[in-house]
Structures are given as C-alpha cells and as structure tokens.
C-alpha cells in the first residue's frame, strides 16, 4: 500500500464535478448526491441537503467503505465497489469512482434502485475521468516545490492566531 497523494481541488474542477452531480440528481430522481474522499472528506454535494449533517455523513460513509473494503480483502476480493442500504423512507446507493472517491446517492420512493444504478453508471464514468485529471494535477503540483500561495506563506503567527481565543 502506498501513501495516497494530497487531494487538491481547483475551482474549475469543482465546478465540473458539481455539474455532473447535479445532473445525476435530476436524471436519477435522487434526493441528494455526495462525493466523499476515501479519507472521509466531503468533496462535493448536490440536491436536497437540508437537515443532513454532511460532515458526519462523509466520515461515516468513508468508515463504512473502509470496513467493507477490509472484509473484501479477507475474502480475496479487491473491493466491494457497489453498496446498497435500504431503509423505510430513504435508500443509500454507494459506489467507488476512480478508486479514491465514494459516490453516495440518497433516494426515496420517487426513484428506484434500477434507475439509480443505470444513471450512476454513466455519471460514474464521467466523474472518474474528471477525478483522474484532478489526481494528476495534484501530483504534478507536488512534484514541484510544494504548494504555491497562499500555503507556502503560512507563518507560525498565522497558526497561533487560530488558537488565540
């Protein structure tokens, strides 16, 4: 296992990702879509987000994927790339995109598992292409002299100020 490189998301890429997510919400009749880094960081979201604690959701989804990934390895599988959780009102459809990103679709009776699977397949391919480019860009960024402004200029004073109260 090698160390995963830093994830750096630029505005242009973020916009493209959100566009695909918003389209998926419409095409799949979903309630909401989340894209979460395997480390538990929320990358993008779309749809009806009111009342959803997105930070907790991201961390738990990543924990879930990590645990089932561990189970898969015990059984000699590389990964379980598709997960489905059925609830009374809401259902969760979870897939892996570009090995590092988790695509979560929340849907209710307005949609169906079949439709979600169909739409996720297409959107997943599009997202995978975008994320591959994002990862390449991030790697290139780190091949050079670390991060550019404003991070290269962070001073100890800046950090002390964070904890000043």
């Amino acid at each position, binding site marked *: *296992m*090698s*160390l*995963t*490189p*830093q*994830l*750096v*998301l*630029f*505005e242009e*890429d*973020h*916009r493209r990702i959100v566009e695909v997510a918003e389209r998926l919400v419409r095409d799949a009749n979903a309630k909401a879509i989340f894209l979460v*880094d*395997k*480390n*538990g*960081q929320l*990358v993008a979201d779309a749809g009806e987000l009111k009342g959803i*604690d997105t*930070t*907790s959701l991201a*961390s*738990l989804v990543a*924990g879930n994927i*990590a*645990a089932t*990934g*561990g189970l898969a390895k015990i059984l000699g599988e590389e990964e379980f790339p598709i997960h489905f959780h059925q609830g009374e009102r809401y259902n969760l459809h979870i897939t892996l995109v570009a090995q590092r990103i988790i695509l979560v679709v929340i849907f209710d009776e307005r949609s169906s598992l079949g439709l979600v699977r169909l739409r996720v397949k297409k959107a997943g391919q599009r997202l995978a292409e975008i994320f591959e480019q994002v990862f390449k860009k991030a790697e290139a*960024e*780190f091949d050079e*002299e*670390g*991060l550019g402004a*404003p*991070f*290269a*200029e*962070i001073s*100890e004073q*800046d*950090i*002390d*100020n*964070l*904890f000043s109260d």
Partner: protein
Amino acid sequence: MAFINYSAREINCKLVYYGAGLCGKTTNLKFIYNRIAESAKGKMISLATESERTLFFDFLPLSLGEIRGYKTRFHLYTVPGQVFYDASRKLILKGVDGVVFVADSQEERFEANLESFDNLVDNLREQGSDLERIPCVLQYNKRDLPNAMPVPELRASLNPDGKMSDFEASAATGKGVFETLKALAKLVLLDLRRGGK
C-alpha cells in the same frame, strides 16, 4: 492526506489519536467537544460498544478559523485501542495528516504503551509512511493518578531522542488536552506549507 479545496477555500486535515486501550483517547475528544465553542464544532460521533469501549472510531470535526482566507478544518479521529482491533486501526490511519500518541502514565500500562507505539510504527509503515513524515506529538496522560510513572522514564522509552514534542496531561480534567491538540495542528499546518514533504 489533507484535502485542499480552492473552490470552497478550505483546508481539511485528518488528525488521529492513537494509543493503548483505555489510555484516554476518547476522553481527549470529549473534553475538546465540551469546551470548544458551538460555532467551531460539528457533531461528535462515537462508534462504541455497549460498555462504551470504542468499536470503530470516534469522530469530531473542528473548524478553527481562517488562515490567509482559507477555512481550516480538522477532523479528529480516535482508533480503538484494544489489541484485537488492529484491522480497524489500519483503516482509520489511512490518509492521516498528524498523530497524537496518548500514553497511559500508569506503571501497569507501561508495556501496553510500548506495544501500541510499535503497532503505530508498523501500521504507518504498511501504508508507506513513518514518523519522520507524519507529524506526531506525544501525550503522557493520567498524570493525576498516584501510580503515574515519572515523565523522564516514559520519555526514555517512547521519545528517547526527544524528536517529538511531548505533553503532560490529565484528559479527564482537561489539563494538557488543548496544548497537545494545538501542537499537532501547528505541525500539520507547517507541514502543509512544505507541501507535505
């Protein structure tokens, strides 16, 4: 590793509290959760057994303010300390930006501390990393207990060359908890400045 979102102007970092079973990792997070301003924290999640032992992890998101126009968010995790939960510890350690190693100062937990520290080194190595690359601070917890070993003895075993910053703490009362967190957050952000190299 840290997630930098230029679009949302956010820096997200993952900090993990590591250490032997019952050393006080969850207690550290609970103290932080209880003391930090409402606006700076999210919900704390504990995936624990019925007897309140950590089963998978505790999670506490903190939003500490801005640095140069970027919101800094820290995601604090604890690992389950009990030896047989090693598979879970490996998962939680993935993508870590900084580690607090919590040592239990009690004499009878001395061996457990060493075992857990070796386990941390092994698990970092498995993901292609080590303590040279991942910022780590040490916390000697439970200093208030009568059977606490002298700090120089603990240091001699866990931090012999003094490379890591170390702090005395009593997580139950909160002593040393924020000092530890601040020290690690600082190292992680300075590390970011260097581009994680």
